[in-house]
């Protein structure tokens, strides 16, 4: 196992209040790949992501078993460096979550926490992050405005850029386009296709078509169970499981 790049999830199970949120899920994503996770609401997609960057620590009463490795090192243990893990495994939420600060301060938040305070360096990082998130043109002359002044789509791309400021190795996106118009959605998808070169991406989405457009591999989760996990083209053209076929053709869910 050791020495392997990317994220390996092995037999991950999560229980809460005697209910199974995830049942023995095993997945893998390597740098250069986008892993799409699809499934109807309540399938455990968000729980899985929150577990991967240890944000699930904030939720009380979760019982997590199984193993998750980042570059071969376990990240679930009690003694794991949670802050370090969260910086290496960035998470973008389903709704834009700008902090009540200026655009500049939102972007600088992560690096400043990590000890980078030189304005010149922050600006350099900002330019490349914002360009990667296709937001540079729109905000480069108004970095000192409150982030709340941006439109919803711009805010979500700001949140993506903000996560990129941490230069993560793994990028987790939880339905990042759920509230966005088609143009903003296309911009984020473009951004992901380029970003894939530098990192492994896990994209949870309610939109089956989005997974088929951008993901290299796709996993179908249903009520906490991993029904099928295959290269995207294979899963969408020749699904092995009847339930996968029903879901991607829109017969339920």
């Amino acid at each position: 196992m050791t020495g392997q790049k990317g994220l390996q999830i092995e037999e991950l199970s999560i229980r809460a209040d005697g209910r199974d949120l995830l049942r023995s899920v095993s997945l893998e994503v390597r740098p250069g790949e986008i892993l799409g996770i699809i499934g109807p609401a309540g399938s455990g997609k968000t729980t899985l992501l929150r577990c991967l960057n240890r944000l699930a620590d904030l939720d009380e009463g979760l019982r997590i078993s199984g193993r998750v490795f980042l570059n071969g090192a376990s990240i679930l243990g009690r003694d794991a460096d949670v802050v370090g893990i969260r910086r290496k495994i960035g998470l973008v939420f389903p709704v834009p979550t700008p902090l009540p600060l200026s655009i500049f301060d939102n972007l600088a938040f992560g690096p400043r926490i990590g000890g980078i305070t030189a304005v010149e360096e922050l600006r350099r990082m900002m330019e490349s992050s914002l360009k990667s998130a296709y937001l540079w043109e729109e905000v480069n002359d108004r970095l000192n405005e409150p982030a709340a002044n941006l439109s919803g789509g711009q805010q979500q791309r700001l949140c993506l850029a903000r996560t990129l400021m941490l230069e993560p190795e793994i990028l987790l996106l939880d339905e990042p386009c759920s509230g966005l118009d088609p143009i903003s959605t296309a911009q984020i998808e473009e951004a992901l296709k380029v970003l894939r070169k530098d990192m492994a991406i896990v994209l949870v989405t309610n939109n089956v078509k989005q997974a088929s457009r951008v993901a290299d591999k796709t996993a179908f989760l249903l009520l906490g169970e991993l029904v099928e996990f295959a290269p995207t083209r294979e899963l969408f053209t020749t699904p092995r499981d009847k339930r996968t076929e029903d879901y991607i053709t829109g017969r339920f869910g």
Partner: protein
Amino acid sequence: MNRPKTMTRSRFAEGAVEWLIRASAFSAIVGLFLIFIFIGKEALPILTSPDVRKEANISKLFLPQDQAHPYSWQPVSEIPKYSILPLFVGTLKMTLVAVLFAIPLALGAALFTSEFSPGWLKEFIKPIIELLAGIPSVVLGFFALMVMASYVQELFGIVYRLNAINAGIALGLAVIPIVYTVADDALTSVPKSYREASMAMGASPWQTAWRVVFPAALPGILAACVLGFGRAIGETMIVLMASGNAAIMSWNLAKPARSLSATIAAELGEVVVGSAHYHVLFFIGISLFIFTFVLNMFAHWFVARLQKKVLGTI
């Protein structure tokens, strides 16, 4: 046939209820206005009546009088002296002690219960602090007079048993629950998404609390402080009992002090209606009224400005 009738009745009831709650909303404003008019009317002779002005006018109230004792509050002596500056100084220095003592404690407690304590501990701490607000101020004053004063005197090595520090700390006990409750509400109502976004970027719980949650709650926290300040400046019974009540023109916290509110409480019961002393007491009342009113207006404006800066232009 019955239906339209009940409809009209319910519409009438609707209108009546709306009128009633509107009236109750405006009654507070009307009450405030009437209080202002009444106190103002009784204070006005200080400016207008020649008889009263001979004994007490603005310059006698605020400017130094004779060389030996430039500022004296001796309203019932042979030659009455009505310098109210020592009362202002007394009020301000006790308020200062109260605020410096109460606000850090209350904000620390609010930060702890809203951000760090487990749920059961908050359920334990919050009601107890709020219980403090339910203690009548006369009881707090009695406690400060009989028990606390000795300890404060010993702790700070003060000559006078009753002094501004003692009264200020007792006052602080009354201020803490107000500041705590409002600040805790403000912190708790900061959206969970801010905390999660901050944590997801690798911030520790303390960094999240200090850099994200606290600034986001700042308008509410400032409102809490202003409320606490207002309570401290107007509180009467505690300072009346615990301060020693000597009208001394001195910023020395170890000396006794007399506050504006305690002066009104102590003297209004025995003053001759219509005398200069009577009108001076009302003048003190209207000064307190205007002072807290202006303070509240300014705080309101400041908080609104801050909110706009934090949340952007809406």
